[in-house]
């Protein structure tokens, strides 16, 4: 199987990203279910000295890995392949511990292969839990089968021992891997995805357009683009209206801060009728007027192809767009991403803020034979050298800050890196309700189309969503979840 970025489809990508939220997601229900039968079993309290034990800890060996302890690594061999592991991550580990023997497995059916091993207690040390057939991390956490990664994040970084690992990662990475109750970081989400407005840099250069920084600029630019016979902005209403609601939520967070989105996730009363959500919805509804009605009936690939043909100027999406469209992108088309425009001068977050999320989870089984080796393997993964190799092999960014130095990146990835560094700490948070409360999410898709294609006003949009959120909150059959950050 060749693993070019071409094969990373939107769905696979969404799946990966979805996993993040899933892990932190419908866990609580299982938790309660299993907790009663398990009888105080969830003692996933893996002091760094728990397994493999032996060697003393030191600056270079913070987990006290036994130098000759073998390590078993299982990698999901999907769109990213497993070469990054066999040719970079594992050799880097062996360089630290030359006597350690690594057993590598590159497979697709992670759950089918590993579930019986978890049941029998003979587990590998590192698992890249991804793909359609991934392990249900929720129940594994509940059963005390996964290791709390806190020691990893508190350990010194390989590149700069004066820094802790957690300080070398893109903000939000650790939080995205929280699971269980109380929530602890059980998943290391390794791949970095950014969301924004995508455009053809070459076209914009030729026409002398620049991506808008405010909604007023957006409208002025949209008029100019329209005069050229190009659709200024479009998304696919038929199957990808969530691309659009991401934009509305990003704008709401920029206006009112991330707390707006956290409140929405926590089903806080009046979260949807918050002024920030109203303003964001109203601003985007204005942009919706530049869209032809027909976009409601098109699917994402149709709209993306239109953009490649120069018929659509700006398109809302995430950083999987460039690899997804790779084979349809004509020569001379250069993807670039810009942040979403500011709604007003009094926005809480600056224009540069972008929504960025970590995906593609890696976990450490708590009952592995070389638990400390697993932690060390992850520390190696989070070194700049390993992250760089991953980006080179998979054409995807990682959560390791500054790991792309000296790499030749594709134009789209380049612009994501630029947007990422411009954003700095101004990162718009993800939305957990997308996974937690599917019914609310489905309603949001519907209301988003109604808003953007002019059937309802921003006020109605907020009222309808609040009604749906209230319904979810009152629904005793839905397990409620909370997040703090």
């Amino acid at each position, binding site marked *: 199987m060749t693993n070019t970025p071409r094969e990373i489809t939107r769905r696979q990508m969404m799946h990966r990203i979805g996993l993040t939220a899933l892990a932190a997601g419908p866990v609580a229900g299982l938790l309660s279910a299993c907790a009663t039968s398990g009888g105080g079993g969830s003692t996933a309290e893996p002091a760094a000295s728990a397994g493999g034990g032996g060697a003393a800890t030191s600056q270079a060996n913070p987990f006290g890995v036994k130098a000759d302890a073998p390590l078993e690594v299982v990698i999901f061999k999907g769109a990213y392949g497993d070469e990054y592991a066999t040719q970079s991550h594992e050799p880097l580990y062996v360089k630290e511990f030359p006597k350690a023997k690594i057993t590598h497995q590159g497979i697709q059916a992670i759950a089918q292969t590993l579930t019986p091993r978890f049941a029998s207690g003979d587990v590998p040390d590192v698992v890249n839990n991804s793909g359609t057939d991934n392990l249900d991390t929720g129940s594994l956490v509940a059963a005390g089968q996964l290791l709390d990664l806190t020691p990893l994040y508190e350990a010194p970084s390989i590149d700069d021992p004066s820094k802790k690992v957690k300080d070398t990662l893109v903000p939000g990475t650790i939080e995205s891997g929280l699971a269980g109750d109380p929530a602890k970081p059980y998943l290391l989400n390794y791949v970095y995805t950014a969301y924004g407005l995508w455009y053809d840099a070459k076209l914009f250069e030729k026409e002398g357009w620049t991506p808008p920084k405010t909604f007023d600029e957006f409208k002025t630019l949209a008029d100019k683009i329209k005069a050229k016979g190009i659709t200024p902005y479009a998304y696919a209403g038929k199957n990808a209206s969530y691309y659009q609601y991401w934009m509305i939520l990003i704008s709401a967070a920029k206006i009112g801060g991330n707390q707006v989105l956290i409140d929405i996730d926590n089903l806080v009363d009046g979260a949807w009728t918050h002024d920030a959500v109203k303003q964001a919805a109203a601003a985007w509804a204005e942009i919706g007027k530049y869209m032809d009605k027909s976009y409601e*009936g098109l699917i994402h690939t149709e709209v993306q192809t239109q953009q490649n043909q120069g018929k659509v100027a700006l398109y809302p999406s995430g950083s999987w767009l460039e690899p997804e469209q790779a084979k349809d992108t004509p020569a001379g088309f250069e993807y670039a991403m810009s942040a979403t425009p500011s709604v007003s001068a009094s926005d809480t977050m600056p224009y540069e803020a972008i929504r960025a999320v970590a995906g593609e989870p890696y976990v450490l089984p708590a009952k592995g034979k070389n638990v400390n080796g697993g932690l060390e393997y992850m520390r190696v993964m989070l070194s700049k050298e390993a992250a760089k190799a991953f980006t080179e092999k998979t054409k995807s960014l990682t959560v390791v800050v500054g790991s792309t130095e000296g790499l030749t990146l594709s134009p789209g990835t380049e612009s994501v890196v630029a947007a990422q560094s411009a954003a700095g700490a101004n990162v718009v948070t993800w939305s957990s309700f997308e996974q937690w409360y599917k019914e609310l999410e489905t309603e949001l898709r519907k209301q988003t189309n109604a808003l953007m*294609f002019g059937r309802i006003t921003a006020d109605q949009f907020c009222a309808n969503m609040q009604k749906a959120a209230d319904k979810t909150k009152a629904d005793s059959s839905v397990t409620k979840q909370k997040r703090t950050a």
Partner: protein
Amino acid sequence: MRHGKLSSASPMALRRYGFILAFLAAPLVLYVVFVIAPYVQAFQIALTNWKGISPDFDYVGFENFGKMFADDVFWQAVRHHGLLLLVMPLATIAIALFFSFLLNVGGGQANGRRTGVRGSAFYKIVFFFPQVLAVAIVGVLFQAILRPDKTGVVNSVLGAVGIDPVGWLINPDLALWTIMGVMVWQAVGFYVVLFSAGMSSIPPEVFEAAALDGAGRFTLFFKITLPLLWDTLQVGWVYLGIAAFDGFALVQVLSVDRGGPDNATTVLPLEIWRQAFTFSKYGYASAMGVALFFLTLTFAVLTLRVTRRERIEF
């Protein structure tokens, strides 16, 4: 004693019933396991809050049904079924009858026998084509045909005569009618063939006698063909009515956002699917399934009762 009597008195009967039983046992077991048992289980699950991801659930009585009757989307779907039930079977049967009449007896006399219009053998095959296509393929085909911009097949034809593109599936007032149109298109062929078979079993002497008495095509159709075709019509009506309670695949493939825009095209099977597989509410989905079961059953029983007529033997 009885055992002895049976074996001694009627070995023939035993052999015959044994033979029939052997043939019936397998399909009966299959039917019970794969049809009856799931139905019964759906009734059971409808009374629980089962989520489908663990074996645990609690019985919640009729709570799911209470929720369902308060659910706007459920009533929207039921209304859509009502509309489908009124329009779709009637339109399909009318068109199919018209075509099969033309194909079988509408062409006038030849060698003293009534025949169809010229090329009717060819048309019969053409009409049957949609029936051969899997419904998913029909969906994908019509996705291209009904695309809302100028590149859609219908809209490009309309564009050629200067009509602006029509949002067949994106206009909430039009979307359900469009999907109904596709359903009719797909169903007509089958009923043309069914009614043709029915018409060809009507003895030609009946038509001849009527024609001799001076009946025109119009009278022939309403006074001879239709009454003698009643049994077949009734079967078609029940089939189509049951189809009107489905519509899942076409709505799923064709509509905006699955059942949209703004729930304008949603149907019960789609909502059941969404409740179960997207929202993990298997209990609630089963309650909707039970409702659908009774709707379909009521329709079938009512139709068979109301349309019962005396059978004419040739």
